[in-house]
Each structure stands twice: as C-alpha cells, then as structure tokens.
C-alpha cells in the first residue's frame, strides 16, 4: 500500500513527487510513457512566465507568480538550466495601448514585480529586430527561459533519489475507491501484464487525461480539451534574433504567437491554438506551420524561417472552467486533482508541487523526511569546463573526449551519464532530451546509429529493442536480407 500514488510523470507530477519526498511516506509515480516528460511537458514554449496574464485571484495567477519566484533557488538546488531574460508584450500601432496598460495593471495586482511600459526607442535598443509596427511594449524583467526537459527530470530524479518509486510504461485502466484508499488497475504497455496498485491518496496529474481519471471516481465531472500548439524551432544561427521572450498583445485576432530564444540558444516560434478531439494528436499541420511565420512577423521582423530545424506540436490540457483545478475532489476523499494544467503550467509547477504536497501531507498527517536530499546534479556539460579541467576529466574518463553528436558537440560521456543516472534514458529521445544529442541542425542524422550502439552496450539492450520513444517505436526491424 502506497501512501500516495501520483499519476502522471510530467512536470506537474514530478514536481509534486519531489515536494512529497520531503515527507516520510511511501510514494509512487505511474506513467504510461517510457520516460518522464513525454507529454505536454516536453512540447511547450519552454518559458517561465512572469505572471501578468492570468486573472487576479485565480490559481493560475497565484501559482505562476509563486512558481516564478521559486525558480532561482530551485535552479540552484536542482541544477536546472534557467535564465531570466525578461519578456515583452508588444503593442502595434493598430492595437489599443489601453489594453497593454490594463495588462500591466493586472500583472501588478497579481504581484508581478518591476513591470513597466517601454516606448519604441527604448524597445529598439533591447530588440533591434522588433517589427516596424510596434509602438510600445510591456516589459517584465522576471520572465525567463528554461529547459523543460531538465526541469521535469530534475524534479523526477531528485524524487527518485529520495525514495519515490517510478512505474513507467504503466497505463492506468481503472481507479476504484477501496476501504482504506484507492485501487489502481494498470497494464504494462511493454509486457501487456496487468498490475494493481493500492494507495491511500491519489494525485491526478495526468495532463490531457486528467478528466478521464477524475471522472472514474468523482461525480464532479471535469472536461479537458486538448488544445494543440504547434511550434517551429530555428537553428542556433538564428538564436540571437531576439534576446527576450516576445509576446503579442492579445486582440480580436487571437492571442498571437511568441518569439523567444531558448535556453540552448535556438529561436522558438509558436504556439498555434486549435482544440482537437484526439488527446494524442501531437501531429503538426501544414496550416499551422504556415501560419507561424506569418503571425510571428507581426511582432518580429526578418525571422529567417529558412533556418527551421524542426517543428513539433504539444497539447495543452484546457479545462472548461479556465483555471487550474487543484485540490481534493469533493466526493472522493484523498483523490487530489492537479488538473487543467495548461499555460502557465510549467511556470507554476514548483508552486503546484508545494501546494499539492501540502494537501496530501495534511490528509495523511505525514511527518518530515529527515533524510531528504535537496540537491541534484545535472549531466556534466564538458563545454562549461576550462581546457585543463576538461583534459583532467578525459584522462580519467576518456569517453568525454569522444564527440557523438557533432552538431551540439555532445560526448559519449554525457550520453553514458544520461543512461546511468536515476531514471536513466532508455530510448533515443530519452538520450536526446537529457543531453541534446540529436537535437541540433542535422536532427540526429549522423549520431542516431552511434547513440543506438551506446544504448545497446550500456543499458545493455538488444538493437531491435531500442526505440525512438517507447513501446512500438522501434528503430530497426531486422537484419539485412532477413525480411
């Protein structure tokens, strides 16, 4: 019997797991995917919002501002790549300046620090590529950019180090109230075997599927719509085209798209916003991709769209109430929802973790875990070392002298670290999200066979069992002439 079973190993579930591991309790995390960070958490804008956007008084507003404020300490403790670049909401000549001022007012009510409006002249010194139509912008210096993969993994790895059990490739089929908690029936997606978990408390952090889980145990039905957002990622050559996250002032024409540098030095444009029926529809569309460059040009000019290196789509879990749904379901004691976590979900995750962990701890009367280890070290990036330090490292571990991904200059040592650390990578995408091997301009054309060899040797696993991203996504299907 677990004290808490968290369903969903995205950034929300992982942040909750990490916070809960500060308490003395038996905790598990269950996810249907082969790795943590496989849903909405891996395909979003990769930014930490300042918090001016949400309605004052809403959970979104409260948790965004709190989550943002927690990021500096967390980034230090958990070695999360994070930079406060600042964000800008730009207003064009045809838009209403009063709307921008109202946004600033809302931000101030939410407690966002240091907001101010910049006029075009000052704006141009910050962002020379701002569109010619832009007249002013709301500047939020606390906005930032983050690696969403490492943020999620940092929480999850640290939770794992502190004793939380992770059950991946484990799909929840059914949840039922039992005498002393809940019974969770699952199927292992790799073996097809079923397994039943028992837990006193369930935390529902299942992203776009959180409504399905809630509705299994509660008469207070949730309705979550998957709202697709498509993105284009541009080469690092274009990474300095802007230096802040640039939003467009929402108008009758829609919310617009953002243009932002990423923490790794690329340029990211997106997202679109289209509600879709299928909760797994992470496909991009011609119409969506075509619209991105066009819409982005309203705020930023001369974006080199020829430098796109990849595009992707993520699904936001939009609950029809419009706010995060966090707390115990009224008619299901011990069933705690962390549902409807759409934007600003990544920014709010640290604060959601705190809030939900507190709810669960109070419900169970948990005591503090005296052995809690707050620190987690990320994967060593040799590029951050001096040549002397690097050569000492290579002398001791020659694999750090062997470049596998030539675009991102990722060494064999980093890939081996990604495989051997807590919740280590077992797939090509798992390695990619942890190390960036395959995330560069050739998009794994050169390094994928070499990364596969390292997975084969280090896990170890059969070549035929190596997947791109879990069950069914095998990369090779047989030996030559065997088909």
């Amino acid at each position, binding site marked *: 019997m677990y004290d808490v079973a968290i369903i969903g190993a995205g950034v929300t579930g992982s942040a909750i797991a990490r916070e809960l591991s500060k308490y003395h309790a038996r905790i598990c995390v269950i996810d249907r995917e082969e790795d943590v960070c496989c849903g909405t958490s891996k395909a979003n804008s990769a930014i930490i919002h300042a918090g001016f956007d949400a309605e004052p008084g809403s959970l979104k507003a409260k948790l965004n501002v709190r989550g943002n404020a927690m990021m500096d300490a967390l980034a230090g403790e958990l070695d999360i790549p994070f930079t406060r670049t600042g964000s800008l909401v730009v207003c064009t000549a045809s838009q209403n300046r009063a709307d921008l001022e109202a946004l600033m007012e809302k931000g101030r009510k939410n407690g966002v620090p240091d907001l101010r409006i910049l006029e075009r002249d000052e704006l141009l010194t910050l962002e020379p590529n701002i569109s010619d139509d832009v007249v002013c912008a709301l500047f939020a210096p606390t906005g930032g950019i983050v690696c969403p993969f490492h943020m999620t993994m940092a929480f999850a790895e640290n939770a794992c180090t502190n004793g939380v059990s992770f059950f991946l490739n484990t799909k929840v089929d059914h949840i039922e109230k039992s005498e002393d908690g809940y019974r969770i029936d699952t199927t292992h997606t790799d073996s097809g075997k079923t397994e039943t978990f028992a837990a006193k408390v369930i935390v529902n952090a299942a992203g776009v599927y959180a409504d399905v889980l809630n509705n299994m145990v509660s008469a207070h039905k949730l309705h979550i719509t998957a709202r697709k957002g498509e993105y*284009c*990622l541009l080469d690092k050559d274009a990474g300095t085209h802007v230096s802040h996250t640039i939003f467009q002032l929402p108008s009758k024409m829609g919310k617009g798209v953002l243009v932002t540098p990423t923490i790794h030095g690329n340029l990211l444009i997106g997202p679109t916003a289209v509600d879709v029926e299928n909760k*797994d529809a*992470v*496909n*991009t*569309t*011609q119409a*969506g*991709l075509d619209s991105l460059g066009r819409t982005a040009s309203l705020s930023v000019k001369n974006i080199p769209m020829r430098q*796109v*290196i*990849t*595009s*992707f789509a993520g699904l936001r879990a939009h609950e029809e109430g419009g706010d995060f749904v966090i707390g115990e379901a009224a008619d299901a004691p011990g069933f705690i929802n962390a549902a409807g976590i759409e934007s600003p979900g990544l920014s709010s995750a640290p604060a959601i973790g705190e809030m939900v962990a507190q709810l669960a701890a109070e419900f169970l009367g948990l005591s503090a875990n005296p052995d809690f280890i707050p620190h987690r070290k990320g994967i060593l990036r040799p590029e951050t070392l001096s*040549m002397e330090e*690097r*050569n000492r490292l*290579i*002398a001791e571990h*020659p*694999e750090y*002298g*062997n*470049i596998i991904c*030539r*675009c991102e*200059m990722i060494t064999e040592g980093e890939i081996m670290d990604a495989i051997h650390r807590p919740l280590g990578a077992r797939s090509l995408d798992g390695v990619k999200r942890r190390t960036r091997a395959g995330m560069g*301009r*050739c*998009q*794994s*054309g*050169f390094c*994928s*066979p070499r990364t596969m060899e390292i997975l084969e040797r280090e896990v170890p696993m059969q*070549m035929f069992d190596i*997947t*791109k*991203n*879990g*069950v*069914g*996504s*095998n*990369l*090779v*299907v*047989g*030996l*030559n*002439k*065997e*088909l």
Partner: protein
Amino acid sequence: MKNYDLVIVGGGPAGLAAAVSARDNGIESILILERDKELGGILNQCIHNGFGLHTFKEELTGPEYAARFIDQAAERNISYKLNTMVMDIAVMDSGEKKVTAMNREDGMFELCAKAVILAMGCRERSRGALNIPGYRPAGIYSAGTAQRLVNMEGYMPGREVVILGSGDIGLIMARRMTLEGATVKVVAELMPYSGGLKRNIVQCLDDFNIPLKLSHTVIDIEGKDRVEAVTIAEVGADRKPVPGTEERYTCDTLLLSCGLIPENELSKNAGVSISPVTSGPVVNDSLETDVPGIFACGNVLHVHDLVDYVSQEAAVAGKNAALYIQNGSSGDARTVEIVPEGGVRYTVPKFIRPERIDDTVTVRFRVGDVYKNCAVCVYLDDELLQKKKRPVMAPGEMEQIILTKEKLGAHPDLGRIIIRIEEA
C-alpha cells in the same frame, strides 16, 4: 602547441586527395584530423559500384575508391588522427591558424598550422528542415542514415518504404532496400525533374519497377509510435500541394533524400565567407577562401555528384595550400569575378586571378532548371569566348568549363567573366 605546415579537417575523399597532392607538392608536415573511426568518409557506406570511372578508368565501389586514396596517403606516410573532432579553427595574429580538436587519447588539444584545408563534407537536409507536417514517429530516416544502418551495421530500418526526394543517395537506397528485402513503394520528388543522376534513375528505380513521381511531395505522416502511412500529393508550379491529388501509402519507413548541405560551422567560426547559394565557402581559383591560408574542397565547398571531381578539386586545393605554405602567402594579384547568369546558379571558383592560374582552370557549376538544346556561353566582359552546345542540362548534374590562361591573358583589362545558358 604542436606545429604543422598543413592541417586537413576531414579524412574523406577530399581530405585524402588534398593531403596526397600537398605532399607531392613538397609539404612534409601534414596532419589529417578525421572524426570517424576510419579514413574514407562517407564512401565507406557507399558499397555500390560506379566510383572512379574518370580517375581510375574502372568501376569501383565506394570503399574501394577510398582505399586507393588511403593507400596513397599511407605510401606517403601522411599522419592522421582518427576519432578526432575539430572543435574550432581560429586565425592567430601571426596569420597562422589555431586548430582546436579533441579525442579520447589526447584530450582537447591545440595545433598551430600555416595552412588549413577544409574537407568536412556535408549533411543531409532533415525532416525538420523540410518542415513536413504530421506526426514524429520512428521510421523517418535521412537516406544516408539508413544507408549507414544497412551497409555498415547490417540492420534494416524498415519493411515498406516511401522515399521523398530523388537525390542520388535516395535512388541508391531504393535499390539497396529492395535488394535487402524491403518493398519500396514510390519515390516522390518535389521538382519536375530528378535531383539525381540519370544513370541512377535507370539502374535503381526503372530496373526494379519503382515508380518515380515528379512534382509530388509528402504532405502528411501518420503513426504515433512508428510510421504507419504517408500521404503524398502533386504540387503545382508554386510547389504547393494541389487539393484532390492526395494518395495515401501505408508504409513503416520514410526515407528522405532532399538535398545535402555543406557543413560549414567551423568555417564560419573561422571567419570564412559563405555563399548563400552553395552554402560553401566563396573561393578563388586556388580554392582559397577569403581567409588567407584556409582552403576548401569537396562537399564542404559545394555538393558534388561524382567523387572523381572531388578528388580532382581536392588535388588543386592541396597543391595551392602547398604553394601558400612555401611562399608564406598567396600574394597579390588581379582578381576577376565570375558572374553566373541565365540559369547558372553559381560557380566554383567565384574569383579568378588570370596571372596566377596554371595553363587552365576548371570552373564547376550547376544549373537551376532542366535545359534542352542549349549552350554554355562564356563571355569575357561582352565578348563571347566560347559556346559549348549541350543536348540537355539538369540541376542534378554538375557542369564544368575550362578557361585557359592564354585566353584570359589576352584581356589585360578584363572586368568580369560571365557564364550563361543560352539557346543552342
């Protein structure tokens, strides 16, 4: 910091031929830096034949062709380091180049070189760069990646294959996948003409009854885990899909052969100017970039279709790097620009120094469209120098013309050389 006269970045066909040529022109101190575990570059995965017809007057496989040059380098005791990645090339105040590289044994190290030859080759355009909409499942490979898996590792990437792009590697892989037991359903090509050599269309598609659909592209990829189907559609003159022409192919693999991009990140960091047309360095007749003492050859300079031409070009780079090292500079000389016009997309070299060239200089280029019954015309300013009739020219085949020192020398006031496609 160890000193070399010449450091060559890349031990593929270009780097090897450049090294051999530099040695034969008197340079003793040469080091080749190769990132892979053996010399020969991408030729090692090109196990089909058809290489070397021009150079050796016989049909070799890729590894055999590479072996000839590896042997030549070995006979000359040319030094090389394998599994070694060049991280940076910088020009020092002295004009010498600092090459930073890394491998398991030596760690990260710096070399000082009087001259550098860039021979890093190219990479394939990825699905992301093509911006093909749809899912992102396993089973989407660039043709070269699939070629490595099949030819070097012995693994089949899939059973039922659709290929987008009719570049040479895609055509070769259509045949290879078929021979290894897979079914290749169709090759779709965005352009109204193939991007590959005519002989490859005949030998790799026609001989195996694999349909080639020109003016078609992939508009959707299905399958969340592994590719399940792709949809292709005809494109109009604007290269946009024509509604109503969609055809869905069930398959588990999509191979991409949609163009090669010279890999010039190192060159850019070294300050070398890059042509927006070729994505390779802008060079003069010595194949020297605008950074004195840095030369380029092979697919890092512009994408070739025949390795024989790579070897020839690399020999020119090697020889001129040797001269640069011996003379301490390239010297000043009158420079004339070659201007590509009327269908000629670019030329390599871009600049000619009439007083400094050998008796002849080979100018290579590609055309931007299919031309029939046409002629390649060379003008020295307004004066027609030569007109060479061609029954057909296509973007997939590299063209060349030869300029002579004698003819150029007769025009001391030459302003520019124009190369243009005209009606025959």
